[in-house]
């Protein structure tokens, strides 16, 4: 048992400026074993597997593949040593056939002529080996997502992969497709392939894996033998940290009988039958893992994506915003997750960013009242303590925290009442985080209402008055402040 480790990661550390994404993580996987890798969002799973593919170069540590030691991988080395990763986004060409995709980059050829027949024959053999029925001539774009994934796996095996790393492979699949994917995984295990399987669906992990490695906050926590472990233990290991960060205290701002937003059986955009109520002055936290459908939910409230059924009531009146513009005019604002691409207009000045939603209002005819424009910008620069020598500074030159403040300033200028924050402190340093929290409290005192999406457990529990948890597009639980508990939230987030 000692000598058949095909892949060993030893003491892997990865540092980014100001952050330690991985801290001395070790794990190993044996021939013919399925090893599950689990952890919360941001636990370091993706970074860890990227060190295996060569996409991330570790700051220190060793990678040992079949006894050969490497300081880091490169995509080429990974391939030569039989490591393949199946990402959620497939690396396929939809306009080429399954066979051609299998041999993408190194087609079978005679001279300069591609040997279509030979490739199709080889592809047929490769698919047969995995017990999957795909006509090699079918265009990959015409295959279901499940079959496209099979082609990816077959391609990896075709290229002699002995270590297969799968990142949330079941996420895009239907339950029937998941079943066939499991069969393929089990078949590969019996052929001696080592599989590292990342999933947030704990039932899959119990069904499939031999051992489980738990990561938390970039550190290795524990390895468990799947059949000897219990789901409660697993959840405790994933979240078991001391709540140490302090959050600014705030006075009670909730107005009991004034409901600002109510959703009734709201469906669409991947979500189903969502019911919730937010009272004025409240922070409702939305918990869940990446892909749980939280961003998708707020997109519908903000008019960015249309709902398919159900009702949205804003201040007691039914609304159906068809564009963000309509939602903004009603008093709804969104501070999006991707600050740089969706939140701020980077190439535009602070002054213009803050005024962007209200330009029409502060214009006479089509001419901007430049005095009012400046007044508005100055007011929110002062209120929000945006640090800048001049309001004509382009937003791309600001720090993350200040960019976030500009976006908040924009919504205050627009007189928004409900402000939706989607991961408001992602990529923001600790000091600026605290400032954002203080700011959120200030907004509440001014009578605003907050819907907060956060994947950081501490932030979610520290800032929310109430938490609702989503899993795969459905509400799996709701907790009042005195019921907040990491284990419970994690359990709800994992659909257990």
């Amino acid at each position, binding site marked *: 048992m000692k000598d058949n480790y095909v892949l060993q990661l030893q003491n892997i550390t990865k540092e980014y400026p100001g952050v330690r994404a991985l801290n001395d993580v070790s794990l190993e996987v044996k021939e013919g074993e399925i090893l599950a890798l689990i952890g919360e969002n941001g636990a370091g799973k993706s970074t860890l597997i990227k060190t295996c593919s060569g996409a991330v170069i570790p700051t220190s540590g060793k990678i040992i593949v079949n006894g050969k030691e490497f300081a880091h991988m490169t995509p080429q080395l990974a391939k030569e040593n039989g490591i393949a990763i199946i990402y959620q986004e497939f690396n396929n060409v939809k306009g080429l056939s399954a066979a051609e995709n299998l041999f993408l980059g190194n087609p079978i050829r005679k001279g300069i002529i591609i040997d279509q027949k030979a490739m199709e024959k080889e592809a047929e053999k490769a698919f047969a080996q995995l017990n999957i029925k795909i006509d090699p001539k079918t265009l990959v774009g015409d295959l279901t997502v499940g079959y496209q994934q099979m082609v990816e796996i077959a391609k990896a095996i075709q290229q002699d992969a002995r270590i297969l790393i799968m990142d949330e492979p079941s996420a895009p699949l239907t339950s029937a497709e998941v079943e066939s994917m499991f069969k393929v995984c089990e078949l590969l295990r019996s052929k001696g392939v080592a599989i590292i399987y990342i999933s947030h669906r704990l039932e899959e992990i119990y069904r499939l894996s031999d051992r489980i490695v738990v990561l938390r906050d970039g550190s290795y926590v524990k390895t468990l033998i799947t059949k000897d472990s219990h789901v409660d233990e697993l959840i405790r290991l994933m979240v078991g940290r001391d709540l140490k960060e302090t959050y600014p205290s705030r006075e009670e701002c909730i107005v009991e009988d004034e409901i600002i937003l109510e959703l009734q059986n709201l469906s669409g955009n991947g979500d189903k039958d969502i019911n919730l109520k937010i009272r004025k002055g409240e922070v409702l936290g939305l918990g869940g893992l990446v892909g749980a459908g939280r961003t998708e939910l707020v997109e519908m409230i*903000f008019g*960015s994506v249309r709902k398919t059924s159900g009702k949205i009531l804003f201040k007691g009146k039914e609304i159906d915003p068809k*564009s*963000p*513009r309509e939602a*903004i*005019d009603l008093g709804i604002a*969104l501070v*999006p997750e991707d600050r740089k*691409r*969706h*939140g*701020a*207009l*980077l*190439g*535009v000045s602070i002054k*213009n*960013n803050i*005024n*962007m*939603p209200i*330009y*029409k209002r*502060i*214009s006479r005819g*089509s*001419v*901007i009242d*430049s005095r009012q424009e400046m007044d508005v910008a100055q007011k929110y620069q002062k209120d929000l303590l945006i640090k800048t020598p001049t309001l004509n*500074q382009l937003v791309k*030159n600001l720090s993350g925290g200040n960019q976030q403040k500009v976006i908040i300033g*924009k919504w205050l200028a*627009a007189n928004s009442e409900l402000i939706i924050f989607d991961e408001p402190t992602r990529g923001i340093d600790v000091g600026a985080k605290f400032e954002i929290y203080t700011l959120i409290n200030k907004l509440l005192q001014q009578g605003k209402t907050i819907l907060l999406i956060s994947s950081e457990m501490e932030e979610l529990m520290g800032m929310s008055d109430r938490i609702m948890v989503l899993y795969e597009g459905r509400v799996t639980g709701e907790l009042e402040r005195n019921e907040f508990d990491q284990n419970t939230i994690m359990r709800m987030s994992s659909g257990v």
Partner: protein
Amino acid sequence: MKSTALNIIKEKAIWMVFVALFLVFAFANPLFVSSSNLFTIARQVAVLGIASIGMTFVILIAGIDLSVGSIITLVNVVGAYLMVNSGFGMVSAVLVSLLVGMLIGVLNGFLISTIGISAIIATFATQTVFKGLAYILSGGTPIYGFDERFKIIGQGYLGPVPVPVIIMIACFALGSFILNKSYFGRYFYAVGGSEEASRLSGILVGRTKYLVYALSGLFAGLAGIVMLSRTNSAQPTAGLGYEFDVITCVVLGGVSITGGYGKMSNVVAGVLIIGILTNGMVLMNVSTYMQLIVKGIVLALAVGFDSLQKKRATT
């Protein structure tokens, strides 16, 4: 944020290029700086300058309008046809022609924004369609014989200053006003920077695109009217290939081809550079074919400079 002096130089670089080029031609041929030649240049660039204002908006939102040349041609033909064959008065003929230019712009907006065709293909298609329409309408032959007063627009003088130059200056002032003072001018920069962030800030991106292409059509239409008056006869090839010069002017003026950055004042410099380059090369007896080569290289240099800066900024 780095060095402000360096930034000022960068901002004004295009004007320095203009001055340098001006001096080169002035030394090469003294005729170049004669006042009659300078006015000729000003008159020549008027059409180019007017059309480049609309194109500035288009490129600011990261779009492109290849139909500008055809709009110029069609407006030439339509204006002439109305005045000569349909008995329209001068004013109404001009107004209808401008409307035609703008409507072609609206059509471009529809194809790009509502249907979702990429700007380069949509305006390429309308370019071809309206080129054909201009041939049909004109029967492939020139149309002439307008009211004497119509000449004023393209050939008249107000004091010592040619009327087309006054029109161009007024248009640049209007363009600059739109970009700097109007609220939709702010939208152009925003949309060019990031469509998604603009949408999430409450900008109606689709409507903004319609407006921009309509303005491009309108300014091209006005350029067409000025040209018609200057040549005093509508040629079915009047605006052939004009979009190339217009795009070159705008890009040379520092408007980023990927959208979001650019100033109207620098576009003026871009227009003047192309103007003196064309005129200077003629004076120096550079062949038409050679001129094409030079202009092509200028366009590649202008875009190349922009791209290199972008590349350096990201790495």
